[in-house]
């Protein structure tokens, strides 16, 4: 239990993940679903990036050659998450484009209305 307080970043990341997951499950609005998806991704980035922190050390950038790298934080999680963020941005952009297309076809972005319109065969064009 005490560990949850010490690792407060991890705890926060997990709760944030839950928030995102619930947003994804509960909302009918496609944009809100995408927001939930993004919250989830962000929580994972937070969780991963915290793994690289070392108390008292600073960002891994040389200011002069005398630095020597002994007082740097772990650069690997930061570098990995840079990759992860770009991937998340790509998926978000694609999801938004899909939402535009769904709006073009059905005239709504509420999921239950889309399903209703599919069932009754109503389409805008």
């Amino acid at each position, binding site marked *: 239990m005490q560990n949850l307080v010490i690792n407060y970043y991890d705890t926060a990341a997990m709760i944030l993940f839950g928030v995102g997951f619930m947003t994804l499950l509960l909302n009918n609005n496609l944009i809100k679903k995408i927001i939930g998806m993004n919250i989830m991704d962000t929580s994972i980035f937070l969780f991963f990036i915290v793994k690289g922190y070392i108390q008292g050390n600073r960002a*891994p950038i040389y200011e002069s050659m005398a630095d020597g790298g002994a007082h740097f934080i*772990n650069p690997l999680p930061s570098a990995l998450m840079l990759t992860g963020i770009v991937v998340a*941005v790509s998926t978000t952009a694609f999801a938004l484009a899909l939402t535009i297309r769904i709006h073009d076809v059905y005239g709504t972005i509420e999921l239950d209305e889309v399903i209703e319109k599919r069932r009754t065969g109503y389409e805008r064009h």
Partner: protein
Amino acid sequence: MFRVASSVILTLILIMVLLTGVTELPQFGLADAPPHNEVMEKYNSESVEDTGSYNVVSAIVLDYRGFDTLIEATVLFCAAIIIIVSLKKPEGESDEELNT
């Protein structure tokens, strides 16, 4: 109502399970946690000699794990292509679309 209740319960179970994992994680910010090992030391101390980059994150992104970045650029490119394919309308049609 049932849907809301079941999602809340599912989410709570998920959070509980994940927090069980957090209790076993190494302490936050300690210098002797498992990730701070020889891999990190090489990145931090030899990046200038190996790659010529003073920014260690840049060195990892572009050189040590450069293959990942190539795939990542591919993902970005792929997303751009898909969006162009799914949203771009033929030139003549787009004006008509605006008027309606």
